[in-house]
């Protein structure tokens, strides 16, 4: 029973990390049709800037200092995403293959520059001591950092929902995911919504980058790669353009992966790919995705 709880909660924690990267990917694809391969570099930028802020505090941070590092990392990644959108993506509006190539290019450049500058070895992320303690949940000893992953993902999910539900820009984004030409035909410049979505997606990925560095025991330009791939898998399974769909799929994948790995090391990736194939076969629009007109 304890093992069951531990694996389950670790799976949810991992799912939370996947969600942070997938939420932005999903909205960016849903609204603009852009497969944003640069999203992993948003994660990396957030991780490095967050690391830089946290390192100013010493080898260890307090919880407020850590949260500050996470927010600054998120903001830096959001601004970086906005820059990429303004400089590159807007010039390639509706040219999807070129967008994919350019965003792959961005991720290679960011990885190479940071790798050249800092090297590719892991550098310890200064975390609060509390992260190393364990919390008792039904007899299972849960590492405390999982709590941060899960609560951050839930906060971002709620923030995202509130923004989409209660603001005008949120309304424009939801309508644009469904039919962006009609939004334009109503006299609304839908490209402004694109910039907002890039910033928000970058912010979530940047926050995710800080948390991924904690989970992977350090920052490095190489950590983003596998999370980007999982991010895309989550988006496809959850449904392009659906943030709640991404949340559901991220949790499902995190949990399934952890349980599969418990029974046989390495089985997790395999099971996730099988799940992806099954969803593509029986529900190609994803769990909560809509069939496009």
């Amino acid at each position, binding site marked *: 029973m304890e093992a069951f709880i531990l694996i389950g909660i670790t799976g949810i924690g991992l799912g939370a990390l996947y969600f942070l990267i997938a939420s932005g990917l999903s909205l960016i694809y849903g609204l603009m049709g852009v497969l944003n391969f640069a999203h992993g570099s948003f994660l990396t930028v957030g991780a490095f800037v967050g690391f830089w802020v946290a390192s100013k505090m010493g080898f260890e941070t307090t919880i407020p200092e850590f949260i500050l590092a996470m927010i600054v990392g998120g903001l830096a990644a959001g601004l970086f995403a906005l820059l990429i959108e303004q400089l590159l993506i807007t010039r390639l509006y509706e040219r999807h293959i070129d967008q994919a190539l350019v965003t792959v290019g961005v991720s290679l450049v960011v990885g190479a520059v940071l790798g050249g500058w800092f090297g590719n070895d892991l550098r310890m992320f200064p975390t609060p001591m509390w992260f190393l303690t364990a919390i008792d949940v039904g007899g299972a000893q849960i590492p405390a950092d999982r709590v941060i992953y899960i609560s951050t993902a839930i906060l971002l999910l709620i923030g995202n929902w509130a923004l989409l539900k209660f603001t005008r820009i949120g309304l424009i984004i939801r309508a644009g995911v469904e039919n962006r030409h009609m939004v*334009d*035909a109503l006299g609304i410049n839908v490209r402004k919504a694109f910039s907002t979505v890039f910033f928000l997606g970058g912010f979530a990925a940047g926050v995710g980058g800080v948390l991924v560095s904690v989970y992977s025991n350090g920052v490095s330009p190489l950590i983003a790669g596998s999370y980007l791939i999982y991010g895309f898998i989550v988006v496809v399974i959850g449904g392009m353009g659906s943030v709640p769909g991404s949340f559901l799929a991220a949790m499902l994948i995190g949990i399934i992966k952890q349980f599969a790995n418990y029974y046989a090391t390495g089985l997790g990736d395999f099971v996730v790919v099988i799940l992806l194939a099954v969803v593509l076969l029986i529900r190609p629009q994803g769990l909560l995705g809509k069939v496009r007109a």
Partner: protein
Amino acid sequence: MNALTVKDLHVKIGESHILHGVTFDVPAHKVTALLGRNGVGKSTTLKSIMGLYQGTGSIELNGSQILGTPTYKIAQAGVAYVPEDREIFSSLSVRENLALASRSKNNGEAYKTIYELFPELDSRATQLAGSLSGGQQQMVAIARALLNENEILLVDEPTKGLAPKLVTEVASALMKVAHQTTMLLVEQNLALVKRVAENIIVMDQGRVIFQGGPENLSDPAWVHQMLGVSGGHK
């Protein structure tokens, strides 16, 4: 005075040349019906005016060139569009569909007008637009276009696929609006066209083949020759 002047408009979609030099005027404060058989390019013409397709030639709105302008600026300049497939946002509520469309804060009067035309939209405000009937969706699409001050309304087959009772309701709403605006209306229902149109344009194979008054619509031979339907008795 013409609200809209289209001259020698050529439009290609991919490799196919759809509009071959379309030329016509839409006089201000009148309803102009754009007629023609299926597939002659009526919807493509409206979409091109809206900037949704690129083309060459000239499209002037009150004397200013709008061809080549981004769609959202054309809409802001006062061109309102009710598309053939309604294109309401099905995952948004009725209220959200209307709120999205309304660009002015000072919209109390406009809301009053559309709720008078379509009281159902008020009582169904929180319903998801995707769950409405075809007729109700059409009301949302028309209301959306009436929420802002417009120079011209482009309306594409508003009664298509509607039950007879709803055709009457939508038609009477259009007739009420017709007095206050300039309208370019694509419509297959000739009875409706005869009641509202003061001016007609007929297209065939990507070209305009007739522009003039609606008198000819009472001549069955003319209707049959121009539109390929027997419409005189309707």
